[in-house]
C-alpha cells in the first residue's frame, strides 16, 4: 500500500506538468537571452564612451575608447588567464593604419581621462581621436587652442551638415535628373541604331537631330550645374580644423568632412544623451558610409519594407486563388490530396533552392525575355535581365505561397456550411457566395497566413543574394523619376546587410556593433509588420465575429 500514493502521483501526471513547464521555460529563457544579448550590444554601441589616455612603460602614449578586456591565455604557464589585456579603439586609421589595438595591462603605467579629447566622426578613415588645435579659413588662421576651436566646432559641424545637404540635393536631385535625361536620350539613339539595322531605308535625320539637340541642351545645363556645385564645394571646403593626436601628430580636416565631434570626457549627461540620440537617428535615417561600417542603414530598411510589401501584393492573391480552387472548386480526391501534400512540402524546400530557381527562371529567362522584347536598344546592358526587387519579391512570394495556401485553405474550411447554404438558398451563385460570404468570413484566417509569410519573407537572405540584393545600392527603388517604382532596381536588405557588415566587411572589428544594431532594426521591422497585420486581422474579426453558438 505504501507504493500506491507515489504510483498515483505518476498516473495523475504531475511530472508531466513539470516536464512541459520546464520545456516552455527553457524556450522563453533562450528567446529572452537572445533578445537581451542583441539589445545590450546593439543599443550600447551609440553611447559616447569616455576616452582614456594611457601612458605605457616605453613612455609612449595611447588615446582610445576601451571596448574590451580579456584574460590573456598562456597555456602551461602559471600566469595562464591571470593577466589581462585591453582592447582600445584608437581610431586615426590614416595615421596608425589600424583602428584597434590590444594593450597588456602590465604595460600601462598611467591612466588618465584628458580634457578636450575629441572623438571626430568623419567622411573617411573611421573616427579621429585627438585634440583640436587650430581652425583655419582659406589658409588663414581664425583661432588657435583647444578651448577656442572646441567652442567654434558645433556651429561648423551644423554648417557642414547643411552644406552636405545642399551638395547632395544638387548631385542627386538636379544633376541626377539631367543624367537621367541624357541616359534616356542615349537609349533613344541606340533604339534608332537598332531600327536602322532592321530597316536601313528609313529616314531618321529629324529624330536624330532632335535627340542631339536635347543632349546638347542637357549637357550645357549639366556644365552649369557642375560649375555651381564646384562653387559650393569650394566655398564649403575652405575652412579646416587641425587636430593633434595623442602622440603629437597633426591632421588637418576639412570641416565639410566632419559629421560629428564631441569632447568625450567633458560631456554632461544631457549632452551624452543628445549624442546618443543623434547617432541613433543617423543610423536610422542616413545612407551608409565607409563600406557600410559607418553611417546609417536607411536604404536597407526601405528595401526590406518595400520588398515585403511587393511580396505580399503578389503572394496573397496567388495563394488565396490557389486555396479557393483547391477548397471550393476542385473535386476532392487523390489528385487534390497529392497537390496538397506537394504544396505542404514546398514549404520545406531550402530557400537557396528557390534562390537558384529565381535566378534561372525569373532573372535570366523572364527578365532576359523582357529585355529582348521591350528593351533591345539597351542590350547587352540588362534592364530586367539582372537581379532586381521585382524578381526578389517574386522569388520570396514563391517561397512563402505554401504558407498562405495552407492558412487560407484552413480558413475557408472553417466557414460554416450553414452560412454557404444560406447564401445559396437566397439564389446566389457559387461565385457570389464565395465573394460575398466565404471570403470575408475567411479574411482573418487568410491574414494569419500573410503574417506568417511576411515573417518568413522579411527574414530570408539566401534567395535574395541571387536575385537582386546588393551591398550598396546607389538609388532607392522608389524615387521622383517616372515611373516612380523602379522594380528593376537592385536594393539593400537588412538581413543581407547583417551578413555583409558582419562577415564581408574590410574592417570587421569596427563593424561588429553594426551587426547587433542592424539586427535590432530587422527585428523591430518584422515585429512592426506583423503587428500591423495583427491589428488589421483583429479589426476584421471584430467585424465578422461569429455569434455565441
Amino acid at each position, binding site marked *: 500500500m505504501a507504493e500506491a500514493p507515489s504510483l498515483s502521483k505518476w498516473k495523475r501526471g504531475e511530472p508531466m506538468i513539470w516536464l512541459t513547464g520546464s520545456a516552455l521555460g527553457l524556450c522563453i529563457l533562450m528567446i529572452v537571452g537572445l533578445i537581451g544579448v542583441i539589445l545590450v550590444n546593439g543599443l550600447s554601441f551609440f553611447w559616447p564612451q569616455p576616452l582614456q589616455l594611457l601612458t605605457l612603460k616605453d613612455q609612449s602614449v595611447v588615446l582610445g575608447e576601451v571596448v574590451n578586456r580579456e584574460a590573456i591565455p598562456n597555456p602551461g604557464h602559471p600566469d595562464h588567464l591571470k593577466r589581462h589585456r585591453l582592447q582600445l579603439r584608437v581610431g586615426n586609421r590614416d595615421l596608425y593604419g589600424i583602428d584597434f589595438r590590444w594593450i597588456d595591462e602590465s604595460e600601462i603605467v598611467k591612466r588618465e581621462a584628458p580634457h578636450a579629447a575629441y572623438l571626430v566622426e568623419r567622411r573617411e578613415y573611421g573616427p579621429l581621436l585627438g585634440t583640436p588645435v587650430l581652425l583655419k579659413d582659406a589658409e588663414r588662421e581664425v583661432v588657435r587652442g583647444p578651448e577656442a576651436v572646441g567652442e567654434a566646432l558645433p556651429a561648423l559641424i551644423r554648417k557642414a551638415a547643411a552644406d552636405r545637404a545642399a551638395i547632395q540635393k544638387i548631385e542627386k536631385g538636379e544633376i541626377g535628373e539631367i543624367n537621367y535625361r541624357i541616359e534616356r536620350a542615349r537609349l533613344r539613339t541606340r533604339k534608332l541604331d537598332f531600327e536602322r539595322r532592321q530597316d536601313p531605308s528609313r529616314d531618321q535625320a529629324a529624330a536624330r537631330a532632335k535627340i542631339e539637340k536635347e543632349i546638347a541642351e542637357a549637357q550645357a545645363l549639366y556644365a552649369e550645374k557642375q560649375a555651381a556645385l564646384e562653387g559650393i564645394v569650394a566655398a564649403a571646403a575652405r575652412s579646416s580644423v587641425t587636430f593633434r593626436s595623442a602622440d603629437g601628430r597633426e591632421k588637418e580636416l576639412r570641416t565639410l568632412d566632419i559629421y560629428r565631434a564631441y569632447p568625450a570626457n567633458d560631456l554632461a549627461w544631457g549632452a551624452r544623451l543628445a549624442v546618443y540620440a543623434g547617432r541613433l537617428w543617423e543610423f536610422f535615417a542616413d545612407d551608409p558610409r565607409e563600406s557600410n561600417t559607418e553611417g546609417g542603414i536607411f536604404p536597407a530598411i526601405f528595401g526590406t519594407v518595400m520588398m515585403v510589401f511587393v511580396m505580399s501584393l503578389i503572394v496573397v492573391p496567388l495563394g488565396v486563388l490557389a486555396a479557393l480552387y483547391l477548397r471550393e472548386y476542385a473535386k476532392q480526391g487523390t489528385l487534390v490530396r497529392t497537390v496538397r501534400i506537394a504544396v505542404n512540402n514546398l514549404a520545406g524546400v531550402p530557400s537557396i533552392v528557390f534562390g537558384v530557381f529565381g535566378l534561372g527562371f525569373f532573372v535570366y529567362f523572364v527578365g532576359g525575355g523582357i529585355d529582348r522584347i521591350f528593351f533591345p536598344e539597351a542590350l547587352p546592358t540588362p534592364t530586367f535581365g539582372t537581379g532586381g526587387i521585382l524578381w526578389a519579391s517574386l522569388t520570396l512570394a514563391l517561397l512563402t505561397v505554401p504558407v498562405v495556401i495552407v492558412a487560407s485553405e484552413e480558413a475557408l474550411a472553417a466557414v*460554416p456550411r*450553414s*452560412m454557404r*447554404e*444560406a*447564401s*445559396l*438558398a*437566397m*439564389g*446566389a*451563385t457559387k461565385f*457570389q457566395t464565395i465573394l*460575398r*460570404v466565404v471570403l*470575408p*468570413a475567411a479574411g482573418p484566417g487568410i491574414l494569419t497566413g500573410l503574417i506568417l509569410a511576411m515573417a518568413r519573407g522579411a527574414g530570408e537572405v539566401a534567395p535574395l543574394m541571387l536575385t537582386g540584393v546588393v551591398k550598396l545600392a546607389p538609388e532607392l527603388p522608389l524615387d521622383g523619376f517616372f515611373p516612380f517604382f523602379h522594380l528593376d532596381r537592385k536594393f539593400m536588405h537588412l538581413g543581407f546587410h547583417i551578413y555583409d557588415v558582419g562577415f564581408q566587411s574590410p574592417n570587421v572589428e569596427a563593424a561588429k556593433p553594426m551587426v547587433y544594431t542592424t539586427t535590432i532594426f530587422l527585428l523591430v521591422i518584422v515585429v512592426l509588420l506583423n503587428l500591423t497585420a495583427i491589428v488589421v486581422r483583429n479589426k476584421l474579426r471584430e*467585424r*465578422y*465575429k*461569429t*455569434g455565441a*453558438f
Partner: protein
Amino acid sequence: MSQELKAAAPDTGLRIRTEVKAQDAAAAEVREPDIVIRDINLCYGSNHVLHDISMDMEDRRVTALIGPSGCGKSTLLRCINRMNDLIDDVKTWGTLRVKGLDINARTTDVIEVRRRVGMVFQKSNPFPKSIYENVVYGLRIAGINDKATLDEACERSLKGAALWEEVKDRLGESGLGLSGGQMQRLCIARAIAVEPEVLLMDEPCSALDPIATLKIEELIYQLKEKYTIVIVTHNLQQAARVSDRTAFFWLGRLVEYATTADMFTKPKDKLTEDYITGRFG
C-alpha cells in the same frame, strides 16, 4: 390576383384569412395548386430516401411535414428549392412544379428557382454582416444597389418579420449580435426581402426557447397572407397550431396527407394515429 392580394395584405391575421380562403376556393378550380409534387424519388448514392411522393400544396396555406427523424421530410423540403444539388451523389426523379415552373427540368435555372422559393433553416444562419446588409443580401446579389430601393425593402422585410421595432435603431450593427429568436426572424426577413412565392421552413423553432417560438409562430400566421409556406417540424403541437394541412412521412413514404384538423382528430392510417398519439417516434 396574387399581386393584388399581396398589396392588400394587412398586418393582422385571422379575419382576412377567411376572406382569402373564400376567394381561393373560387380560384382553385381554374388554376393548378402552388406546389405540385408528382412521383418524386430521391437517392443518396444507393440509399433510396424518398419513394414516389405525390402531393399538392395550395396557395397561401401552411403545410406541415411531420414524421420521425430520417423519414425524408427535410429531404423533400430541400427538393423544392433544389438544395439537394449541393450534395454529391444525389439522384432525383419525378416532377415538381412551383407556380408552374418545373423545378427539375433541364432548362430551369437553379438560381431562378431559389429566388422564387425562399428558405429558413433550422439553425439561424445570419451572415457576419450588419443587420441591414443581411436583409438586403438577396437584392444585392440580384444586382440591385439603389439605396432607396434597398432601404424600402429592408424596412418592409423587417416589418414583415416583426423585427423592425427591435432593430430599427441599430441596422448597422452585426447580425450576429442579436438573440437567437431575433436572428431567426432576421433570417426570415432576409428570405422575404426578395418577395419569393414560397417559403420553406426547416424546423425553424427547434433551437429556440418557448417565447421566441411563440413569436415565430405568430409570424407564420401573418406570413401566410402573402406566401405559401411549407414547414418541417418535430413539434406536433406546433404543426397543429400553425398549419392548415399536415403530411405524415414514414421511412421515405407519404403515409397520410390531410387537413390539420382531420389529421389530428381522426387520422385514417394506423401509423399516423400511433405517431401523433406518441406511441412511437
